């Protein structure tokens, strides 16, 4: 699942080499993805009114629901 998020974010940003994602298990059913990108790319992953960020969350939720889990995507600044 982490690969999916990484794949999409790297296609979206201008500096793919600065994309960092850490995966943490909060409990058995919840995974937290912490996403770190270059400062000038923050707007790209968040989007107008957070639309891109929400779309990323929806896609990640779908991927994790298929595996019987829920996921949280946090964008660090």
């Amino acid at each position, binding site marked *: 699942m982490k690969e999916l998020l990484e794949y999409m974010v790297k296609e979206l940003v201008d500096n793919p080499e600065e994309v960092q994602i850490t995966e943490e298990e909060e409990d058995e059913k919840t995974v937290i993805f912490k996403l770190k990108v270059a400062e000038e790319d923050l707007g790209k992953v968040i989007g107008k009114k957070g639309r891109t960020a929400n779309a990323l969350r929806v896609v990640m939720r779908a991927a994790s629901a*298929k595996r019987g889990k829920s996921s949280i995507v946090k964008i660090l600044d």
Partner: protein
Amino acid sequence: MKDKKMDDALDSFVKSLEEEQKSGSLIENKKIKGEQVEQKCSGLDRIVDLIKNTLEAICIGEDLRVEVDENNLKFAVYGDDLSMAIGKNGKNIEAIEYLINLISAKKKLVNKNILIDIKDYRQKKAEKIKKTAIKLAKKAIKEGRKIKMQPMSAFDRKIIHDTLSGFAKIRTKSKNEEPFRRIIIYPVQENN
């Protein structure tokens, strides 16, 4: 002097080309396994790859088939067990489509918005909306009063406006703000 400038420009151009090739091959390497590596580099193929990789990651690699309609930029996906890729009221498919549109705009793969349909979900939904719209339009004419429809997305509202534009006895208008924006069907008074 002049020649040197030309040389520099050429050098930088060749460099940028090389870099592009490198980044291209990086993406090729990143392909999730089980995918045939194709050498074609056109924008459409890249989009098909994007759709396949995304859906395979969401649905844990089912048999996927993507049909491309090059004129309308429609990508129809077929395969087993894709319900999770559609989501409630098509929420997931909309998110996937939005993200892939963003990427294709950024990489200039195609110069128009693309449409993604999974197992004809979109097409069926559009037909359903058209049917409802025509039914309600008839009701508005018969009862001579305005009829409010359910709140819908801009894409769905456009389908209704387009469908009902052929009816002379009614006109359609959208009211309220997103996400509660809805269509109201007014019967046209015949006395003027």
